[in-house]
Every structure is written in C-alpha cells, then in structure tokens.
C-alpha cells in the first residue's frame, strides 16, 4: 500500500486542531524520531493512519463519519497538539472515548 505525506491530510488536521499543523513537529513514541507533521507517512483506508517515517509505528489515527471525527494521538509525543473541544471531535485512547462525551 502506498503512502502519502502528512501534508495531504492538512484539511482534516485543520478541522481537528482548528489551525494548520502541518509545520508542527512531534516525536515518535516508539523510536523517538522527531518529524514535522507534514512529513509523516499517511495511509488511507476506512480511516486515516499516520505512521512514523523512520520505524512505521502508528502515531495518529483518524476515523471520519459525515459530521464527526474520532482521533487517537497516543503515538505522537511532544507535539503540543490539542484537538478542538467540539462536539464533533472525539478523542480516543486505548479504544475508549476519553473526552468525557458520550460514545456514539
């Protein structure tokens, strides 16, 4: 499966974080590699999986429905990125929705 760059999901990321974050940087929780979000590897299927360019560990996952998006950022460290606190953005960690909102 071929991948794209983090840059290619800039629109989705802008919806989740409320600003352009492709030139923000973060650290891989597995190998420690530091990269710009725009340079991460993006795999698109039913959802969006963002992997470390160095070790391929999963850094971020996004699942979109028509009006909502579920976000798992557990693999990306030190980015300072905070998803918007909006009803349409749900933060997921270890399979549980952890943002205090009722799971859909």
């Amino acid at each position, binding site marked *: 499966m071929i*991948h794209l*760059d983090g840059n*290619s999901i800039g629109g989705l990321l802008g919806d989740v974080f409320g600003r352009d974050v492709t030139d923000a940087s973060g650290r891989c929780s597995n190998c420690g590699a530091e990269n710009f979000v725009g340079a991460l590897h993006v795999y698109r299927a039913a959802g969006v999986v963002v992997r470390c360019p160095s070790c391929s560990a999963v850094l971020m996952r996004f699942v979109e429905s028509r009006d909502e998006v579920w976000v798992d950022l557990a693999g990306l460290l030190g980015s300072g990125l905070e998803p918007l606190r909006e009803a349409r953005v749900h933060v997921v960690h270890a399979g549980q929705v952890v943002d205090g909102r009722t799971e859909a």
Partner: protein
Amino acid sequence: MAEVADAVTETPRVRTLVLDVPGWTGHRAGQHVDVRLTSEDGYQAERSYSLASAPREPPALTVERLDDGEVSPYLVDDVVPGDKFELRGPIGGYFVWDDDGSTEPLFLVAGGSGVVPLMAMLRHRRAVGSTVPAKLLYSSRTFEDVIYRDELDGVGAEVVQTLTRAQPPGWSGYGRRVDIDMLREVAYPPEQDPRVFVCGPTSFVEAVADGLVALGHRPGRIRTERFGGA
C-alpha cells in the same frame, strides 16, 4: 463554494480551473485545497489539488484526469465556467515556499502533475522579483504531457526536462527516468545547501529523495509531497 471562472486546457489529460472563491484571502505557494463533490444520493468524494497560481493571483487548480478517478474526470472533462463546487482551503504550511529573504538556491523536482505546486513557487518567485537562484528538474512521459510547456521558457528559472517514454526529433533534454546521475548533474551541490521541494507519485518522490540524500543533501532540507491514485 468555489465558482469556475475559466477553464484552460493544458494537455489532453490536464486542465486548469481558475476559480472565484468569495472571501478568499490569498494563499502560499505550494498549498493545496480539498475539493468535495456530493452526488444526488448524498455520496461524497473529496480529493486534494494543488494551487497552481501565485499567491496574489486568483486561486487556480491544475488537475490531471485519472481514468478511474471519482473527482478528476469531472473537473477535467465536464466542468464549465459558472459551475460551483465545495472547497476547503488553502491548506498546508509544510510544503510551501515563501520569499522570506533567505538566499540559498531553490531546487524543485517534479514528476508529472507534481509540477503544479512547484509552478506556484516559480510564479511567486517571478512575481515578487526574487533573486534566489532556482532550478526545476521536470520529468514527463512525452512532450505532449508537459504541463505549462509554453510558460516554462519564461518562468525565470533554469528548467531541465526529461521525457521518459518518447522524445521528439531534436530533443535536447534527458530521455530517461530521474536517477542519481541526473540528480548529480542537475542539482545544486550539497555545499550550497539548497532548499529542495519534490512532488510527484510516491515511487518518484522516494527515488528522488533517496538519491539526493545519497549525494550528500541534508534530509531536513528536502520537503516532499506524494500523490496517490484515484
């Protein structure tokens, strides 16, 4: 919503759509937009397209038709001025070139329609009168596939082309895929620490980026934008 103001045929497979977007406040060279089409039954398809125009010009998308695509055949073959579609953007702060006063040379490497965001950078450079040295290495399949063919001569940068499938009689450019020997001959040497932007299909981008790193260019100076099918 974006309204198509003009449509310009670039090649048999590629068309440029000049858009009128209410509230558009400009963009940066290298940014893209997401185009979303909604069918009558509510099915939505969304694709990203690079902005081709310089930041102070009206937004323009150059789109290549992918025959099995959901969005590009409509944009290349069907859309007429006056048609409207949903647009998100401009997007991206990573694969962009601003005229920020830095003096290192700019080396751009394009595969096919990967030339689009790089052309926005060259148009921007020309529009602002930047004196930063710039060079474009541009790979196409055939002469007929070369996008912006007439404008490349006057874009104010050195343009080196390669045609990978067929070359017209008297062709003076390269006639093979971009390889490390070509990069060695064309790229600014690593000692000049050029800023490098590479855009094209994934396999093209991988080969170029790996080649440049092998030649001694710093990975951190190489920014890539891959595009996939459909």
